[in-house]
């Protein structure tokens, strides 16, 4: 009897305290929107090339900070990030750590994931600040140092003005206060993932992040961990606070059981996979702090089309079959778990068919009944992912270490035909392409050598380039930035841009330890402003059930990153700076000494002439006497040198010299102090 009230009492106390605290913190108008929110989602998608894409999406929201932001208490939102936003007044920021290269051909280039989560290798950071123009650079430098400490990465190298740039219009519409920098050679590993996970309220102890088994993630073909911050409050929109989106995109190769057999016999059959087989773990429970915790399985439009084609043949309406068995099994694959609901994409742009989303809620599952979604392929199916209108690749031309050329090649993917109708606005169909390229200063680009080829034919630059902004690189100060807007006719098959450059020669200290490996030119960003990667799963945009799906609905331009280029630079001999210094100095000494020697050399008669002059200066009488005596003795006359006089003269000279030197020394000492 006596035991019973105690827990209830303490529970009551805790609850009431919490309410009081939160009431104090949030003010009197305690509203639903003022709460901090966290949600976790995972999207799985089979890829055409026998791989699986896993896209984790964690979103934390903090309510708008009140005017007195001091001593603010956070429940879910990471305090470090909130402080960072407040301190540097970050309007928008995106930081990504990527290993591997996104394969735009096979993994798609037109969906929201590929345009916003496919990132260049290494570290990419951009941030927009809400500070006056002259403070932007200082804020950027501070931010890089802070992030460097937060994420255990060498982001602080982005502090140097040679590594970051200020794109004006081609990268992000809101700019001016935007800075962009990349570190192509940053190695990404668990030491970067762990601090990233620490920002999640459940870390990797519960919820979907349990799946992040390090070995299986880093075994993947591509992984990109990203952190995106938006704080619209600086723009005057006070209704929403800081939004932190953490995403991890992984492309994994499922281990197909008995791989050797199936691979050789039926190459087209996709490997079956389950969560436990690709991650080595199962989802046991949701993160209790998360508002929503969902897993989605996405079938791409291309795959759905293939399935529907078969349906027409077999007259099995698999997707409209309301029974749960229809969702789970169809002629192509079996799902091990029944989805909670099925969503179809609306307003699809890609051809005839739209993608399908199976939704699973993790809340139902527990330790005793872990969630392990499995996909078992039964018959081979071939499909392709939606592509960006032009496939971009970049390469180097030329040989040797003196000069070369950068070429960006754009090849039509055949997608344009679908959009011919959509984009004819001003009578003629034009395909607009934005290119943003940053080139480090030691690659000295001659921008006047820009040449454009369309369908293999050279074109006048002014015909194709609609708008151009170049800020040439300055040695050891800033990188070269080129922003271009190109307009091609819609039926363009291929296009290429070339730029010639000279390779720079650096000081011996400026080379990295492995200088002969070469230097990286960061990826160029090719974006298509008229094409937007957005996928609607809901008719009404007000439905904000899933942050990830609403992110997919956002209007974002299709964007792709080109390859990172490796430029080998000539190296000096690192081993012998002393030799060079001594040899050069010897040559200079040779020059100085021998020339001075030639100039002051006197041959016989000149010396005699000088002696004559010196003798004339001496006493006339003594000179006469000595001359006389010389004549008498029949010897050649020589000017007599009185030892006493000369010695006194020399000593006087010596004293003067010593005094002079000491004077200089004292003056120097005094001056230097």
């Amino acid at each position, binding site marked *: 009897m006596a035991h019973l009230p105690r827990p209830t009492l303490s529970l009551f106390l805790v609850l009431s305290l919490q309410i009081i605290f939160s009431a104090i913190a949030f003010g009197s108008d305690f509203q639903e929107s003022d709460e901090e929110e966290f949600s976790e989602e995972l999207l799985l998608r089979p890829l055409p090339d026998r791989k699986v894409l896993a896209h984790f999406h964690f979103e934390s929201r903090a309510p708008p900070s009140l005017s007195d932001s001091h001593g603010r208490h956070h429940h879910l939102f990471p305090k470090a990030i909130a402080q960072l936003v407040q301190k540097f007044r970050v309007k928008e920021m995106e930081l990504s750590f990527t290993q591997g290269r996104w394969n735009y051909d096979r993994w798609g280039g037109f969906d929201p994931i590929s345009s916003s989560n496919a990132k260049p290798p290494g570290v990419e950071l951009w941030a927009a600040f809400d500070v006056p123009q002259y403070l932007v650079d200082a804020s950027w430098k501070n931010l890089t140092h802070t992030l460097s400490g937060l994420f255990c990465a060498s982001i602080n190298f982005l502090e140097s003005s040679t590594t970051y740039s200020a794109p004006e219009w081609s990268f992000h519409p809101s700019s001016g206060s935007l800075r962009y920098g990349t570190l192509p050679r940053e190695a990404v590993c668990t030491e970067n993932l762990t601090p990233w996970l620490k920002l999640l309220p459940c870390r990797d102890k519960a919820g979907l992040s349990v799946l992040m088994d390090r070995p299986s993630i880093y075994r993947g073909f591509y992984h990109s961990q990203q952190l995106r911050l938006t704080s619209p409050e600086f723009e005057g929109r006070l209704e929403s606070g800081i939004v932190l989106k953490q995403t991890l995109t992984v492309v994994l190769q499922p281990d197909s059981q008995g791989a050797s057999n199936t691979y050789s016999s039926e190459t087209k059959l996709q490997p079956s996979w389950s969560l436990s087989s690709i991650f080595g773990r199962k989802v046991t429970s949701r993160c209790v702090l998360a508002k929503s915790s969902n897993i989605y399985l996405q079938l791409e439009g291309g795959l759905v089309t293939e399935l529907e084609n078969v349906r027409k043949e077999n007259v099995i309406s698999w997707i409209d079959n309301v029974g749960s068995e229809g969702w789970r099994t169809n002629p192509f694959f079996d799902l091990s778990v029944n989805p909670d609901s099925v969503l179809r994409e609306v307003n699809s742009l890609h051809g005839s068919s739209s993608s399908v989303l199976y939704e699973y809620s993790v809340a139902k599952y527990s330790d005793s009944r872990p969630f392990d979604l499995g996909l078992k392929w039964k018959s081979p199916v071939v499909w392709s992912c939606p592509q960006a209108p032009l496939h971009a690749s970049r390469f180097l031309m030329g040989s040797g270490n003196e000069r070369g050329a950068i070429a960006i090649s754009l090849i039509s993917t055949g997608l344009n035909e679908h959009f011919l109708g959509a984009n004819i606005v001003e009578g003629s169909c034009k395909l607009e392409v934005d290119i943003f390229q940053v080139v480090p200063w030691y690659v000295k680009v*001659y921008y006047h050598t820009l040449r454009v080829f369309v369908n293999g034919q050279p074109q006048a630059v002014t015909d194709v380039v609609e708008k151009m902004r170049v800020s*040439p690189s300055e040695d050891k100060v800033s990188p070269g930035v080129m922003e271009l807007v190109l307009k091609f006719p819609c039926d363009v098959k291929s296009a290429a841009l070339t730029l010639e450059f000279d390779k720079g020669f650096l000081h011996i200290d400026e080379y990295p330890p492995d200088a002969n490996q070469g230097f990286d030119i960061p990826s160029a960003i090719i974006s298509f402003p008229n094409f937007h990667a957005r996928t609607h799963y809901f008719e009404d945009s007000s439905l904000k059930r899933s942050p990830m799906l609403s992110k997919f609905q956002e209007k974002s331009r299709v964007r792709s990153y080109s390859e990172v280029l490796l430029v080998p630079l000539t190296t000096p001999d690192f081993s*012998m700076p002393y030799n060079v210094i001594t040899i050069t100095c010897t040559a*200079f000494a040779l020059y100085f000494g*021998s020339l*001075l020697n030639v100039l002051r050399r006197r041959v016989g008669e000149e010396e005699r002439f000088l002696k004559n002059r010196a003798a004339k200066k001496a006493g006339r009488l003594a000179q006469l006497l000595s001359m006389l005596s010389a004549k008498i003795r029949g010897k050649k006359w020589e000017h007599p040198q009185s030892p006493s006089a000369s010695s006194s003269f020399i000593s006087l000279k010596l004293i003067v010299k010593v005094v002079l030197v000491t004077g200089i020394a004292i003056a120097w000492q005094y001056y230097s102090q």
Partner: protein
Amino acid sequence: MEPKEQSKEKKEKLWFWNWVIASVIFRLVLIYFPKNLNLASRPEVSTPLTSLRRLAEGYWLKQLSMSPYAGSMYHGSPLLLSLLGPLTVKRIEGQPDHLLCSLVFVIADIVNAMLIRATGQNLQMEYTRSLKLLDHVKLSEKPGKIIPSGDIAALVYLWNPFTIVACVGLSTSPIENLAIILSLYGACKRQAPLAAFGWVIATHLSLYPAILIIPMILLLGYGTDTPPRKLFLQRRNVEVGDNPPNDRCCEREEVVHRSEVPHVFSWRPVIHFFCWTSLWSVYVLVLCGISVKQYGGLWELFKRTYGFMLTVQDLSPNIGVLWYFFAEVFDFFRNFFLIVFHGNILFMMLPLAIRLKHRPCFLAFVYIAISSMLKSYPSVGDSALYLGLLGLFVNELADMQFSFFLFCGYVGVSLLSPVMHNLWIWRGTGNANFYFATAMAYACLQIILVVESVSAMLNHDRKLRKPLTELQDGKN
């Protein structure tokens, strides 16, 4: 006898012009080779200062209404940019890309050669006159055997492979050389405005010719090269002592008349020169100021041109030694060595000026040779200039030592340097030291050339004095 000599002379003149025309044709043929034989990208030919490609980039930036000095591409003069810039863009169908620029450089080369020739003729006139004045024994021994040094120098300049390469290889050094030679010519002819113009433009274009102000003043003050003034005095003394006392007065008058011509320092042309110099400088500065007004003004211009030259920021290889030195030297010594190396050019100015003040043209040659050896971004165009000027002193320097060795050295270095560059940069089988070794050898050759030519010139003066002193000694 007379007509025969005249026809011979005519023949010689014809011979000269034939060679000049042949050199022009040779250049045009080379220009029409595809891609200019890739000479434009040779590090020996185009330095960051003289490369026409960088000039084209600067012009392109200017056309985009950006500063031509934005980016570290162009470091030359804004006047040259507005002069040559439009020519880099103009293309003529079916002709090589930079035909117009090449033609400008060919014309500059021809004008250079003509000016050198005129200077040489002037020098030679003075030389024969002074020899006659001294009644020199050598003259009587070999009558009329003075080589026409002007023609020789002009042809040496025109046919020097370095000049040809610099002209065809689209570097702006022919224009810079033109300014220097113009100032020398003007000073030799004692035309202060022309000399001042040349000097101001040369200094504006490449800074180092600024040290030529000393030979300019001496040339304008004393006139062209003569044997040392002391010799004339000595000669007068000898003559005076020789003559019997009765007709001494009239003889002395004559001697005074004869020998007084070379040694009076006339201030008038020098003051004229300074006035014109300030005038031209103001003019050039105003023009520059107008052209860079919206890009940061004159200070920015000086920082981007002269600052770039003096601080050796570009470490790309060239035939000098400073690029490798500053690529390897420790950063905290950098300023010290910059001062030392540039000081080296200045240190020798005064001793040379004292010792060679009677030969201002030769002094100018030595200055040019020294600055082209020690400048931060030397190219073969600079060597072409001093090698051409060397031809002017072919009579005086006839007894120069090591001339064959030097010739072989120049040939060897100019053949080896491309090979080493290829091994290092293109093939990757050599390393930087290979190329640096040729640069070092080249620097040493230039040092020997300068030292030996100065020594030969001083010896020549001694030789002129020898008969006089012997005469004096015998008398005593």
